[in-house]
């Protein structure tokens, strides 16, 4: 897959973002973001609404095309390739190949309503990885078991609670065995009593050594689970560091203000 510059040995970051900019018309939503994430690292991103957190995650797997800057996974450019000294866009097929390595968990789950839980979890391994149905279902059931939903394999999404749906969505991502997992406010569409079950699954993944970038408003969870917390505001990283620093004694006024605002709610 990533022959060139395979960074596994070199200790280079799994995810490298260089001077990322994203504009929607006149609005510059990301104004130069640099970020390295090491293999096995858990990074939480917090920040006020509209600060560009979702856009940043969407750029990482190229659901959103950056206006400028570059993103590397394991040393491989995402969404483009260098030909001579020019950058050209990847074909659909090449881009799809890169996206296999990046799992994305959406705020609104986005399960496929015409497929059962097991169907949701096996469709990509079958269609993308070319696994046989038997092998894919074996893997799929294992992943559903892992998120505590082995008994719901044959249920359709509309018959599942929000928390269960999100756990199926996580299992769907796990079945592709991605190198990197992105979570965009995975619990903020859920009723309060359902948040815990999803956070538990995420914590378990973190304990197993997954590399995770987590956008969240669950400050406590971010503090518990992350190696590093990033505070974003107005399209920039304002402050970052270990949770006890950024959440405990932030050095930036804007971070303090945001944390106070969150706690007041």
């Amino acid at each position: 897959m990533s022959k060139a510059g395979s960074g596994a040995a070199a200790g280079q970051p799994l995810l490298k973002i260089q001077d990322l900019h994203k504009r929607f018309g006149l609005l510059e939503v990301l104004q130069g973001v640099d970020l390295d994430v090491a293999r096995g690292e858990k990074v939480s991103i917090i920040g006020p609404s509209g600060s560009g957190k979702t856009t940043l995650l969407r750029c990482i797997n190229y659901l959103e095309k950056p206006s400028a800057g570059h993103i590397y996974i394991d040393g491989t450019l995402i969404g483009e390739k260098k030909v001579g000294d020019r950058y050209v866009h990847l074909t659909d097929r090449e881009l799809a190949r890169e996206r296999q390595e990046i799992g994305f968990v959406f705020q609104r789950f986005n399960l496929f309503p015409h497929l059962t839980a097991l169907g949701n979890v096996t469709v990509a391994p079958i269609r993308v990885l070319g696994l046989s149905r038997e092998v894919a279902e074996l893997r799929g059931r294992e992943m559903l078991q892992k998120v505590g939903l082995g008994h719901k394999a044959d249920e359709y999404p509309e018959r599942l609670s929000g928390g269960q749906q999100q756990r199926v969505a996580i299992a769907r991502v796990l079945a592709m065995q991605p190198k990197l997992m992105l979570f965009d406010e995975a619990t903020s569409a859920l009723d309060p009593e359902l948040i815990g079950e999803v956070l538990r699954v995420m914590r378990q993944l973190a304990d197993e050594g997954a590399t995770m970038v987590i956008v969240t408003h669950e400050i406590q969870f971010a503090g518990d689970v992350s190696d590093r917390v990033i505070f974003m505001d107005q399209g920039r990283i304002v402050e970052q560091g270990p949770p006890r620093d950024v959440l405990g004694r932030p050095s930036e006024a804007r971070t303090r203000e945001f944390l106070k605002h969150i706690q007041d709610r």
Partner: protein
Amino acid sequence: MSFFEILEKNGWYFFTTLLSGWPATLMVAAGALVFALVFGLIIALMRISTWKLVRWPSTAYVEFFRGTPALVQLFVIYFGFPDWGYQPTPIQAAVIGLGMNGAAYISEIYRAGIESIHRGQTEAALSLGMTPASAMQHIILPQAIRTMLPPMTNFAIVLLKDTAIVFAVGVLEVMALARQLVTETLTSAPIYLMAGAMYLCVTIPMARIAARLERQRQAWH
């Protein structure tokens, strides 16, 4: 002779003659439907393309076929194609004509169906590593089918009725035979009414199927 006397005397003859037109009517309708389903999907996929160069011809196609009479299109195919070295049989001309015309309408049904599926579905599929084409085939179209089936059934009804114009290029379908009967027997009302009743016998059940599909569309299972 009164209406009923005519029917009593010639009714069975009318009926069997008109009935012999149904194979042609059904063949044209089915052929044109398949043509329109396949070609319409291609047009629809072109119309939602991000490439202007792909989108433009498909838009022009839809505008042209919806903006001109089907009869004109039929004549172009039947009387015009020979000039370019292809002489279609009447049935071929009818299938191609109604099929190309139907593709323009059906492409709009496909397009509306595809666009009714939330963007998050495509994004989820892409994020799992599917190509856009694979996402369309395995995620979007299977869902869109549910939205599309009722209007597709309604379209099939319209198509069946529209086969009544293809006598103009010489297809011996129900309407052509009705006209022959009228010339032959110099009666018209009983014959056309009987032909109409025959169409109803097919279209009413189809309309009921469409209504049923519409009701079932709400829930997934």
